[in-house]
């Protein structure tokens, strides 16, 4: 009975909460290490193909601009325009792609490109949720901050 009381005293103090959770995570990490090696599945969604010669390197996924591109999506039937954004280049990025070789990242970060395709089209809901998290966090911070100001 004594040990139970001691455990419950430890658990009831919320200052120990983080330590408790950290302990649980350590155990899981150990299980993780013990369960190695885990094999890496080779058939992944949205695999990479690298073409160092391309001016879009490392984001050149081929395809025809304003046409279709092969994108390994989970449910291609749900995104009828899958692959359209992947090949799209705005005039600016087209200019960069034509004249330089090492700006692939900038070109792809500019609207269009595979990452925008994933972030905005096939997995757009992730982005919605994630911006909501940002929004909520800022709502909390700015509410607290401005309440102090008054």
């Amino acid at each position, binding site marked *: 009975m004594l040990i139970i009381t001691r455990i419950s005293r430890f658990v009831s103090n919320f200052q120990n909460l983080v*330590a408790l959770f950290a302990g649980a995570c*350590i155990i899981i*990490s150990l299980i*993780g290490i013990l369960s190695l090696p885990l094999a890496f599945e080779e058939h*992944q969604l949205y695999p990479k193909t690298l073409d160092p010669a391309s001016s879009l390197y490392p984001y050149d996924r081929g395809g025809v601009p304003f046409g279709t591109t092969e994108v390994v999506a989970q449910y291609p039937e749900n995104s009828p325009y899958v692959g359209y954004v992947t090949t*799209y280049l705005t005039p600016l990025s087209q200019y960069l792609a034509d004249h330089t070789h090492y700006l692939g990242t900038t070109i792809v*970060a500019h609207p269009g490109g595979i990452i925008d395709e*994933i972030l905005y089209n096939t997995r757009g809901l992730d982005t919605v949720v994630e911006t909501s998290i940002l929004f909520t966090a800022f709502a909390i911070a700015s509410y607290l901050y401005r309440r102090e100001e008054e």
Partner: protein
Amino acid sequence: MIPAYPLGLLVAFASAGIAFFALMRETDGLHRLLLTDLIEVVTLAFIALVGTDLAEALILPGLVVGASELIALSEIYRIKEGYTRPPADSLQIEVMESAPAILAAILVVYGIVLSGFSGGAVAGLGVIFYFLCRDHNERFELIETASGYSWVLWIIAFFVFMIFPEYWFFAVMLAGSAILVKVMAKMSLIGTMRGGPNA
């Protein structure tokens, strides 16, 4: 030859274990906050190890989640500990007069070119750096409103994607620029949340 993924996982799991061990031993609130930042890094390592385009698209939300929770928690910590007096002066060295304007200009322009999340973060950093060294008495609400509207724009863009996919071009442009404005505004707000007149 050991394959890369299990090796990476081994390091990631070990790092997670070490980080959690430190967290378990730590009692000070602010040190705990710093350690959570460390744990964010380990989290991203897990995602980065996947190594596909999808992983990259997942790192971005992961990053934003970590940063935003850090912001909210730091503010709660400040209120909880009752640190209410704004900091008196910032760093007073020569480069603080010369560097911010140029660097911020470069970063903001580059951020606008990038657009999207990455652009927002880069441009936001530039704006923070600028505000850090200048007197800032711009309107807090104004930036907030701008960011709110851009959020709405982005949501609209998302639904355009889902419901009228034939207007995808319009949607991708809208989404890219709205996210840019939104993230930039949010990030620059941190720069202004340092006390001072109407900050």
